[in-house]
């Protein structure tokens, strides 16, 4: 079960853990193919060329495997899709709920991953 975007997809919790523990900077957008999520995927696709030090992934919110993001303590108050999470050396350093624009995303990337 994957999203219909051009991003790399994470399908399982095990793969998620493997990626965040083997890659320094990771951004994962966990959502659906809805109007609040699509702009975030679009921006991530665009940023892939610019931020070569960051690995960009998406994950289907409704997949049972996405519990790794849905149940993260940092997302416990979130009530709007997508849940977007940022990992540095396996540690979740930032999480946002609902639609974000390019400037909001690049501010986080610059603050945590530069």
């Amino acid at each position, binding site marked *: 079960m994957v999203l*219909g975007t051009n991003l790399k997809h994470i399908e399982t919790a095990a793969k998620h853990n493997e990626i965040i523990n083997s890659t320094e900077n990771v951004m994962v957008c966990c959502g*659906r*193919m*809805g*109007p*609040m*999520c*699509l*702009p975030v*995927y*679009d*921006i991530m696709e*665009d940023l892939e060329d610019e931020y070569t030090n960051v690995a960009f992934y998406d994950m289907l919110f409704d997949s049972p495997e996405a519990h790794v993001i849905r149940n993260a303590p940092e997302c416990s*108050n*979130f*009530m*709007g*899709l997508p849940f977007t999470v940022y990992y540095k050396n396996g540690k979740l350093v930032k999480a*946002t*709920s*609902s*639609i974000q*624009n*390019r*400037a909001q*995303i*690049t501010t986080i990337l610059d603050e945590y991953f530069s």
Partner: protein
Amino acid sequence: MDFDIIIVGGGPSGLTAGIYASRAKAKVLIVNEGSIGGQMVLTHQIDNYPGVESVSGYQLSKTMRQQAKTFGCTIKTGVTLTNISLDGEVKSVELDGKQTFTAKSIIIATGGRSRNLNVKGEDEFKGKGISYCATCDGDFYRDMEIIVVGGGNSALEEAVSLTKYASKVTIVHQFDHFQGYQHAIDEAKAHSKINFMLESRIIEFIGTEKLEKVRIESLNSGEITEMSISGVFIFIGYVPQTEFLKDKLELNSWGEIVVDNNLQTNQKGVFAAGDARVTRTRQITTAVADGTVAALRALDYINQK
């Protein structure tokens, strides 16, 4: 000059303008805030686009974007337009306060967006109790009490659809009557989970980590009450996305761009297409028709130079 034509907005009108202009070998840049496809991507299923039996808005957007790219269009999406210069021979756009691009002609195709309440706390609790999309976020509110703000078709229909999840839905509306179709009003009124607070408006969203309550003002008595609530869905209509053009182009009292029959604005070389311009009909078909006309007239304009 960096480009022949810059198109501001990547909905169906902007993408169509991009397809026509770049196919005519013009050097074209589309700059877009939000997601490519604009309001089209809000539509799960489009059944009235001729020649296509049924298609998701996302798929149609993806195809239009690919067509524009194939013809050589440069597309920058998710950007913020921080400045725009429309007078004079050289027009320009500034993106994210960093990059500036110049062109001979500009097409404005910025469409419309859902209206915000512009009330204290609205930004703070977006995604933490405040939502603008029932299909996206409805299931976070299972067995909770929520408010729907608005009195048009979207508010009434979404209130009914949210009863699938919420234990109780209160529609808060500023007037004593609704603006929706009678069948939508009847369905909402007949629903056992829906109740109404008319002639009322939310004046503040309150919470710590997430939304906990709202302050509501009665427009009749001026009385202010607090109501504990888990979520608020806001559906109060669409506005043209033209605020940034206020002192630059002629707009009517609703903020729509005034154009002539060639979709030319009051600035030479600046055209407007789709939902952002003065028009009575706002559909994908009319947006793509506008995109076509605006591109062809912009090409005429730059070829006369």
